[in-house]
């Protein structure tokens, strides 16, 4: 075994564990704002993901140990679960997770080989195939009189065909959905935004969730697990595009802060677009990747067929990664006539 003979301590497992840890504030906020249903969703997704991962590893002839303890399957499961509506039926969660692990991850070659972010593939498959069930968002607790306990949430999730009325009573359109619907009813943005779901700046409850995602993201950045490039440019992409549109016609396009704090953007910017496997690797590439994903998110939100665009935007940018990487190769040492850098001392 040739050199080097020593290693830094960081391992893949550690990185993944930190990502999971960084999601904890968001999960706590989720429980506080929308009730404990998310815990059921997370458990279902985790169990499915681990089971599917184990089965696929076995089928492909890989040893279970190093790959199961790398925690990557659980990260995928959590990211998917946090993107799903909190009262999505159990089979929806299972289908999405299976698709993410089996098709998006393992059929593409497993850890490190997948082109698309598995969690987002799972999400995209679900939103395309089951658009109705993908609207079962629990109403924020401060806007509803019906509080679901853990048991009740489980009942809804496992209940199979719960009468629509029951679901209708505890679910609510998300702010993005409401904005979309309102605009289609020829209302102006200001008129739509008087609805209670819009809250202070990013939608009642949702804004805190977004903040919690951002907090976790900052933790990852502080630990040097993610670099600033992708999150910052992603947010900038969303902000600039939304700002431009809003400036152009405030009546037809939502304000930029609203788009920024619809929680999927924070989740996407800090946890999904930063997925190293499917993201750009060069510094300039990361900037383009983030900016492009932010821009596409807004384009899809505004003109696309679905209310949110983060997942599709990231998947589209995933597709462009090889191209981006190829054309943004940084100069090598001594490869360009750079000026001497500023003195360090």
């Amino acid at each position: 075994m040739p050199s080097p003979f020593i290693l830094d301590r960081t391992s893949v497992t550690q990185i993944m564990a930190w990502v999971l840890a960084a999601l904890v504030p968001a999960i706590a906020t989720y429980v506080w704002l929308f009730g404990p249903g998310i815990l059921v969703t997370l458990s279902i997704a985790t169990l499915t993901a681990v089971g599917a991962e184990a089965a696929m590893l076995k089928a492909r002839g890989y040893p279970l140990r190093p790959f199961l303890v790398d925690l990557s399957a659980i990260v995928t499961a959590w990211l998917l679960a946090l993107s799903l509506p909190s009262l999505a039926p159990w089979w929806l969660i299972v289908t999405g997770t299976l698709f993410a692990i089996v098709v998006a991850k393992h059929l593409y070659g497993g850890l490190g080989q997948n082109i698309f972010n598995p969690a987002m593939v799972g999400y995209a498959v679900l939103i395309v195939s089951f658009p109705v069930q993908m609207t079962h968002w629990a109403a924020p607790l401060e806007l509803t009189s019906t509080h679901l306990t853990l048991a009740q949430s489980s009942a809804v999730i496992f209940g199979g065909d719960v009468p629509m009325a029951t679901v209708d009573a505890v679910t609510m359109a998300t702010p993005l959905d409401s904005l979309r619907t309102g605009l289609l009813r020829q209302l102006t943005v200001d008129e739509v935004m008087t609805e209670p779901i819009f809250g202070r700046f990013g939608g009642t409850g949702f804004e805190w969730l977004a903040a919690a995602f951002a907090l976790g993201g900052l933790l990852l950045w502080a630990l040097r697990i993610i670099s600033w490039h992708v999150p910052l440019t992603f947010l900038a992409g969303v902000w600039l595009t939304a700002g431009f549109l809003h400036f152009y016609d405030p009546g037809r396009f939502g304000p930029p802060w609203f788009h920024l704090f619809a929680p999927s953007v924070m989740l996407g910017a800090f946890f999904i677009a930063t997925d190293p496997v499917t993201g750009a690797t060069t510094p300039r590439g990361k900037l383009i990747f983030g900016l492009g994903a932010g821009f596409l998110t807004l384009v899809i939100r505004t003109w696309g067929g679905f209310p949110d665009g983060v997942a599709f935007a990231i998947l589209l940018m995933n597709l462009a990664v090889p191209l981006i990487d190829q054309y943004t190769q940084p100069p090598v040492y001594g490869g360009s006539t750079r000026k001497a850098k500023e003195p360090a001392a």
Partner: protein
Amino acid sequence: MTRELHTFKGGVHPPEHKAESSGRPIHAAPLPRKLVFPLRQHIGNAAKPIVEVGDHVKKGQMIAAAEGAISAAVHASSSGTVTAIEPQPVPHVSGLPDLCIMIETDGRDEWIDHAPLDYRTMAPAELRGKLRDMGLAGLGGAVFPTGVKLDPGATQHCPTLIINGGECEPWITCDDVLMRHRADEILQGVAVMRHLMGSTEILVGIEDNKPEAIAAMRAAAAALDFPVEVVAVPTLYPSGGAKQMTEILTGKQVPSGKRSTDIGLQVFNVGTAYAVARAVHHGEPLISRLVTVTGHVLRPQNFEVLIGTPMQTLISLAGERDGTTGVLMGGPMMGMPVPDLEAPVVKATNCLLVQSRELFPPLPKALPCIRCTRCADACPAELQPQELFRFAKAGDFGRAQEYHLFDCIECGCCSYVCPSHIPLVDFYRYAKSEIWAHEKDKRAADLARERHEFRQFRQDREKKEKAEKLAAKAQAARAQAAQDQVRRAELATEPAPAPAAAAPADPDAKKALIAAALARAQAKKPDAAPKNVDDLPPAQRRQIDEIETRRAKIRELARQPLESEEKNT
């Protein structure tokens, strides 16, 4: 005055482990009974032996001469008798033996006549040749022949001379200790280098984790009649890399694919400067060097070691311990495992690092690359190691080269930080050596094509010439015959000579010659033939049969070579 320091991109900071061996004074290693001198101790052509088995040599006597432009001589490091010139274990990662000169020492340690050189009056080229003949090569690790590097190029002027005391690899302290104890002599060597390079600015870069060395060098520099700036640089691996040290001190990057003299500077290791001083001021060729012996030994320290000393001797000297799992030559980042401790200390041996399970736990199993780009962040050559890895692994060497594989300095930073624990550097070494092999094959193929085409051209020409000759001969014969007839008619009484008698004998004669030779060979054969056919294992016999059938086929082909071509046209 503090100098403006610059930073290079990337780098890592592994645990230093310098204190273990840097505290003790330099200890001279005893004269071993046997010395081994590999002929390939430097970059470039192997040296060519100029002694024979049985010769008696003195200490400092040249035993192998430099061969070609980039090469360095090899000298006996003590007096004794040449016992063998044969392949022996050498410190090489392959574990393959290489040609060495073996000397049994006589214990007298008797020097050859030697005297200091008056370098100021010598022509530069002559001095460089002298250094080459004294076997000087870079002692920092790359072992590039020093004489070649001491050429400022066409401009005859290299403004900046950098003396590299970075020694950034963990564990190694031989340069540190050398600077602490022999700063004066290092600077004497620097004076020679300055003279040859025509430098005006001399910078000595030393990592700031070696304050004693910095102090010693500064004190020695103060006494000189020319300015030498000793600069403390931040401790960060690989700041001791020549390019990295250059950038830290000057902010300049050596352009990719160019030499440092192209931007007016040259870098030498402190050990090399010391060796130059010994060579010039004492007339001593490179026959010894400092070697750090550290790690899992009882007394980690630095030895002054005669080149050619078996490594095992040094480890015993430092105190071998139980639980040794291996020995590295060099540091933990760029060193290589020593396959056989009978291998000698060579010019490149700066450190022997003895491993144990505690100091060097087995590396965890590698996982797939997750493209986290920590390697790219750590790479001091500013490459994209994850892409190079992908291409090297897939055997796409062309793309690897496009991504500047050959700018990789194999420092190991990428492997060090890789969270998937992939032996990245191994992949780059593999890719590089494959590319070299491919290029070699390609050159061989081109040569073969050229030679083949030339041969065909020659054959065509010969055929044509032969045909012409035959035609001429036939014509001559016809003319002769006609003349003969005329003559016969005229001189019917004279008997006609037989003109054609000699001609047909020509091919027959050749055949006869071959037959005769064949017969001679058959007579000789009894001792040659049996080794081909008798007592062969069935597999080999089958192989022979195979060859026979193919030969038959080829013979057949040769008999009707044009058939297939005729069909085509």
